[in-house]
């Protein structure tokens, strides 16, 4: 048993930390207020190698392992959750499907520019009436004269509508299986596909500087060759992507919690009441001790799941446990962080108020808390 990070993992964590503190943190408040997608930061993240961190160098990535990737997401989220999700969704949801299921040609055409951070890509699973129940996809694709004709709607799709978004990979019903269930296939939808449109950005409670849109398909005409993976494997393959995605959302939760803890600790030392710093009150000390305990615990769970993935072991259960636990930890931590700030924590200019809003999605996105519990129970054989 060895808890030491490798030299590369340490250096990546340190570098991303410096970048996050110097470049991202000073902008977080304004980006949140203005709902401004940070094109310049994405460019800088691309130059740094963050947008392709976990992909091999031959495909334009940095060739880092999952542990390094989780550490990088944590450090970004510690500074700003919106920036972190832009990067994390890009890697684990946008680019990963091409890496895992793409042909060599698709990898060259899509994965390379994505890993280089030259374009962003969406992951279109959720629909207005198919969220937790993702298999209930209503979007349909029919093959006609060498093209897929796609009709339907996708909801809440991250990174799908920025100026540098190249498209979205979706699930669509392409027929019926022999067992009578719908055949679901992944289709690559390029941004300029006729009949494909994006809504305006949703108005959101948190992650306000990230790009989330509704997608609509009205007889959208997609080349027949734009199938990703095998026809009929669409749902299975997307659920595989979500397994890895859970590590990234879990890392995001831990990072956010640590950012809130940093702020609370600092504030507790500065703020005085009854003639002394509030950090001298045992009630505040106990809160901070509990926060740190839970963050450390959650971080170990995330790193264990990431390590298992790197070791090519079955990491599904660990990833679900880590995602569920760290999501809940982030809620308790941001809550206490605001409490420690008193009335100031309720004010926009204090980072903890943003963190409080940014937190909630951690318990909803990429499988709600309830769904994680279902998945975990299923893995117990229940």
């Amino acid at each position, binding site marked *: 048993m060895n808890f030491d990070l490798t*030299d*590369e993992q*340490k250096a990546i964590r340190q*570098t991303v930390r410096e970048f996050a503190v110097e470049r991202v943190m000073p902008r977080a408040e304004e980006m949140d207020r203005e709902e401004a997608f940070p094109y310049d930061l994405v460019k800088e993240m691309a*130059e740094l*190698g963050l947008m392709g961190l976990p992909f091999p*160098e031959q495909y334009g990535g940095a*060739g*880092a392992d999952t542990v*390094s990737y989780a550490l990088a997401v944590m450090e970004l989220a510690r500074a700003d959750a919106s920036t972190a999700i832009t990067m994390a969704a890009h890697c684990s949801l946008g680019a990963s499907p091409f890496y895992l299921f793409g042909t060599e040609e698709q990898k060259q055409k899509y994965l390379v520019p994505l890993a280089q951070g030259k374009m962003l890509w969406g992951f279109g699973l959720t629909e207005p009436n198919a969220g937790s129940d993702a298999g209930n996809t209503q979007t349909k694709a029919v093959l006609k004269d060498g093209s897929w004709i796609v009709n339907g709607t996708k909801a809440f799709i991250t990174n799908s509508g920025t100026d540098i978004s190249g498209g979205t990979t979706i699930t669509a019903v392409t027929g019926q299986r022999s067992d009578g269930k719908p055949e679901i296939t992944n289709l690559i939808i390029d941004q300029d596909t006729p009949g494909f449109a994006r809504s305006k950005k949703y108005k959101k409670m948190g992650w306000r500087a990230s790009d989330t849109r509704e997608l609509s398909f009205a007889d959208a005409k997609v080349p027949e060759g734009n199938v990703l993976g095998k026809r009929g494997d669409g749902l299975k393959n997307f659920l595989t992507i979500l397994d890895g995605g859970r590590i990234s959302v879990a890392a995001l939760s831990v990072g956010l919690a640590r950012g809130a803890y940093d702020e609370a600790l600092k504030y507790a030392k500065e703020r005085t009441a009854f003639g002394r710093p509030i950090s001298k009150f045992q009630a505040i000390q106990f809160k901070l001790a509990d926060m740190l305990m839970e963050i450390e615990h959650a971080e170990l769970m995330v790193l264990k799941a990431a390590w298992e993935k790197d070791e090519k072991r079955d990491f599904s259960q660990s990833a679900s446990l880590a995602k569920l636990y760290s999501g809940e930890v982030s809620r308790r931590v941001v809550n206490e962080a605001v409490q420690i700030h008193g009335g100031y924590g309720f004010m926009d200019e204090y980072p903890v108020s943003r963190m409080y809003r940014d937190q909630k999605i951690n318990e909803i996105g990429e499988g709600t808390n309830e769904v994680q519990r279902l998945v975990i129970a299923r893995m117990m054989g229940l």
Partner: protein
Amino acid sequence: MKIVVTVKLVPDTNAAKRIDPATKRLVRTGLETVLNPFDEYAIEAALQLKEKLGGDTTVTVFTMAPETGKETIRKALAMGADDAVMLSDAGLEGSDVWATSYAMAQALKKTGFDLLIAGGLADDGNTGGVPGALAEYLGVPALTNVRKIEEAGDGKIRAQRETDSGYQVVSGPLPSLITVTMAVGEPRYASLKGIMGAKKKTIVTLMLADLGLDRAVGTDGAKTEVLEISAPKPREKARVVEAADGASGAQAIFDFLREKKLI
């Protein structure tokens, strides 16, 4: 062109430091080492020059440090330096400027260089004495406090030297040594690809036996003896001026400055 950058590994600049009263040396155990901040500017200047010159220009980082510093020196490789040379030997412990620069110079003769770039000052020892002494031992000119390298190549270098009132344009032959100021540009981040690639770059380790020195180094070769170390006197408590309004406050401050003959 072969550019060599001297980089000192120093204790984390933000960490609280302690001097051991017995040895009168900085306690280094438990402190993380980092690249000396000024030397990061030297690396930046070297990488900029490499990008400008292209071709077969290489950047080598050179450090005299214990072998445990290997991990830290990789950060310089991750920033973009091509390789590294470490002079590591227990016999170097206790070297002062005199012994440090002598040992470094002998190693740098072995490494060879067209342009040697140093930071101006080390964050821990803080003497600023090494670069000048290096130039002397190596028999090359020293162009100090460079804020911009205008041209380098064909056996010549031209650079802007920062002064109190502006800058001077100076030139000299190559090989030369220069020290740089923070005006050369903010040190770049190590790219994550660079970090992943740093492990594949070579770090050559030299020991004293490789150098064939004809003089003592380490504690025996040091000419400096630290006699006493004391903390700076704590500053006197500031006097707070309290006044009913701005005008009488300003008057009180004015009177105070006048009394101290500061205005």
